[in-house]
């Protein structure tokens, strides 16, 4: 091959070689970084389940580096040096590039013939190989990044923040699994299909959370999706309850299922009374008054089927049509029964949603505490949005002193010095017939082991064992101010508050 043509071809191949090398190096470093980030999750719980993003970035980086490098072509002298070194030409090509346009001399002709001979023996494919040297390493790293996600992801080292977060995730998974089984059993027994479907979904998701490969970020995404699904089913049930006449509210129908059940039971009694053959006029009048009272006090909207049936029953009873009145009362009773069922099912779904959200919150708190110990220490205690009896519904109104209690959110009274504390002894808190949540006693972050207790026994019935005491509001305010001024760590605030409360109680 002519030396000039050889140099031209070598320049082109050299440009491609450098570009490929640059692309390969970029991909290699990006994949190494990705693998390093994944390895880091063994100790630190930051989310890196972005293996496809890593691969895409590595490929993109490689292509950009390749294209950038292709734009800069090597000079003829660089190509000549390359050939000299790779083919042991003893600087023939470089000297050729330097002297090819020079004045003729005795030795120049001899040199040019020598270069021609040497160039003819050069095998360009071997002299400038295009295959990158480390492509196997790039492929192996890419495979490792994917394999990590498929096989090893979720592994953690003991006594690391990542391990603590993983434990929280698994605990939440097991807790939700237990709850979901209970919900499933109850929903199957009561014939609530929507609640049953939702409970099964929760159980499946909780199973994946309880598996050893679950990561915090994956768990949070899964729980968020689950909460959204449950919320959608709840919305459907709420819409159906509103069609049945339940008054709409900001967070659902403003009617407690027990109220609907009570109305249903009362209507059943009235229906039975109307079935009496020897119903006197006075008794019929009492039934009529009862129907009138039910219609006027019922929280349902007037155009609801139940209200319409009640009006029909009253009209029939006034017209001495007892059979028609009885049928109308039955229709009203069935409407209330359906409404109560919808409300109860919606209540179970609400419970599922709250527990799912509570788990998500717990995992988020663990993540926050793991990555920022200061935040874990100073973070205010956050409680999930538990269902509260809303003002205006039955049982929520404090009828003893006539003072209306207003709903001020789940954080009401948790901050020191905020909120109102009524100076009176209230009624005992009713025991919830549900499993207690696992109690976490984490201690100070970063110190000692984490002990986790799990209570599976049903809650004790009857009166609460802890005596309810009246604490003057002034004292509470003082204690709160002291707690705030002395910067008492959050885990010890309740102990300090109880200590002063006991002091106040024992004081004359």
């Amino acid at each position, binding site marked *: 091959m002519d030396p000039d043509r050889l140099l031209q071809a070598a320049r082109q191949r*050299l440009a491609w*070689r*450098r570009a490929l*090398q640059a692309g390969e190096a970029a991909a290699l470093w990006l994949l190494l970084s990705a693998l390093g980030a994944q390895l880091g999750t063994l100790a630190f719980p930051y989310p890196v389940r972005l293996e496809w993003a890593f691969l895409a970035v590595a490929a993109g980086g490689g292509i950009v580096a390749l294209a950038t490098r292709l734009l800069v072509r*090597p000079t003829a*002298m*660089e190509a000549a*040096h*390359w050939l*000299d*070194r790779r083919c042991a030409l*003893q*600087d*023939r090509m*470089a*000297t050729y*590039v*330097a*002297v090819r346009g020079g004045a003729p*001399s*005795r*030795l*120049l002709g*001899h*040199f040019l013939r*020598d270069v021609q001979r040497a160039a003819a023996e050069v095998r360009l494919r071997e002299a400038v190989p295009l295959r990158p040297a480390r492509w196997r390493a790039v492929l192996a790293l890419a495979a490792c990044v994917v394999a990590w996600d498929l096989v090893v992801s979720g592994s953690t080292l003991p006594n690391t923040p990542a391990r603590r977060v993983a434990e929280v995730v698994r605990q939440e998974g097991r807790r939700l699994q237990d709850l979901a089984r209970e919900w499933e059993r109850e929903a199957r027994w009561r014939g609530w299909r929507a609640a049953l479907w939702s409970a099964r979904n929760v159980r499946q998701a909780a199973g994946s959370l309880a598996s050893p490969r679950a990561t915090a970020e994956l768990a949070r995404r899964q729980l968020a999706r689950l909460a959204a699904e449950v919320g959608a089913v709840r919305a459907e049930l709420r819409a159906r309850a509103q069609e049945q006449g339940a008054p709409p509210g900001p967070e659902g129908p403003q009617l407690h299922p027990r109220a609907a059940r009570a109305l249903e039971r009362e209507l059943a009694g009235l229906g039975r009374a109307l079935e009496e053959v020897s119903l006197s006029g006075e008794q019929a009048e009492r039934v009529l008054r009862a129907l009138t009272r039910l219609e006027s006090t019922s929280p349902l909207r007037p155009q609801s089927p139940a209200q319409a049936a009640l009006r029909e029953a009253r009209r029939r009873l006034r017209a001495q049509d007892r059979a028609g009145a009885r049928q109308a009362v039955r229709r009203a009773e069935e409407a209330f029964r359906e409404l109560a069922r919808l409300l109860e099912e919606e209540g179970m779904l609400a419970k599922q949603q709250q527990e799912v959200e509570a788990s998500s919150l717990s995992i988020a708190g663990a993540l926050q505490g793991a990555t920022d110990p200061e935040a874990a220490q100073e973070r205010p205690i956050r409680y999930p949005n538990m269902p509260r009896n809303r003002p205006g519904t039955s049982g929520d109104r404090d009828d003893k002193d006539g003072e209306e209690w207003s709903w001020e959110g789940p954080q009401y009274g948790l901050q020191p010095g905020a909120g109102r504390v009524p100076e009176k002894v209230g009624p005992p808190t009713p025991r919830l017939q549900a499993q207690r949540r696992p109690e976490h006693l984490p201690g100070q972050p970063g110190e000692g082991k984490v002990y986790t207790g799990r209570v599976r026994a049903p809650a004790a019935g009857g009166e609460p064992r802890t005596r309810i005491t009246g604490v003057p509001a002034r004292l509470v305010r003082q204690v709160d101010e002291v707690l705030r001024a002395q910067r008492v760590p959050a885990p010890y605030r309740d102990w300090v508050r109880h200590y002063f409360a006991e002091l106040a109680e024992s004081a004359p």
Partner: protein
Amino acid sequence: MYQRIRQELGRVVVGHDEVVEGVLLAVFCGGHVLLEGVPGVGKTLLVKALARVLALKFSRIQFTPDLMPADVVGTNVLVQDPDGRRSLAFQPGPIFSQIVLADEINRATPKTQSALLEAMQEYAVTVAGVSYPLERPFFVLATQNPIEMEGTYPLPEAQLDRFLFKLRVPFPDTESVVEILERTTGSRVPEAQPVADAQTVLRMQALVREVLAAPHVQTYVARLVEATHPQGPRPARAARRWVRYGASPRGAQALLLAAKARALVHGRAHASVEDVRAVALPALRHRLLLNFEADAEGVEADQVVRDVVEEVPEVAAASAGT
């Protein structure tokens, strides 16, 4: 031609391939050589054989402490013609030859040693204000004994710099000694035959200067010499530690010229970086002035030159980058 000369020399000189090649390169470059070796390893024999093979006039000067400059370059003597008139006539010294063997050059006083300076650099001697040119080609091949240092006068740097090469003549290996014994203790001692003459040598010297040297080879030579200077912009680590003063620009000239000669005797019309590396040791070892620390540590100039050659990157490698 080179091969024929080597072949003839090989009939007399056993082994010492590197030394023989070094001497021949110096001859083709027109440079002088300082041979260093213990007595009896064949230094004088080599020079004599070379003079015979090249058919050049040969003279030998045995340097002793009482040797005077006039004994080397010659002197004006009073002569009387047949008419009885007396006049001063220049009596040339042994320097007026083509190959001068300055045996044990370090035994003469610096004054006498410096008498060689003009001859080596200017190819002429000046006596009583009259300059006498020396016949070309002219080579000085000096020898010195590295072990008997008592009563010697080490060559000054200025004079050392005038030698193209400093070649170390090592003790021959066993096979070579056996060969020497066989050749020299028999009834017939082999003799070299002339295969070239002064004109051939001069033509070779002219041809060496026409050998092509690409800019990157010249740059490499410059960087190599630059790296031997501890105060320079890019000193090598070894130079920074062991060297007091590095090689001169004359050293760079010697390096490139020797590289060209080496390329030519290897059948190439261009010098390469490899040629420069091959001649770096004999061309630079006597041009480095080592410091006290090197003396104390027993570090030799050869080691420093090798380190410098290893450290200085080839210009091609730096620009190619891949």
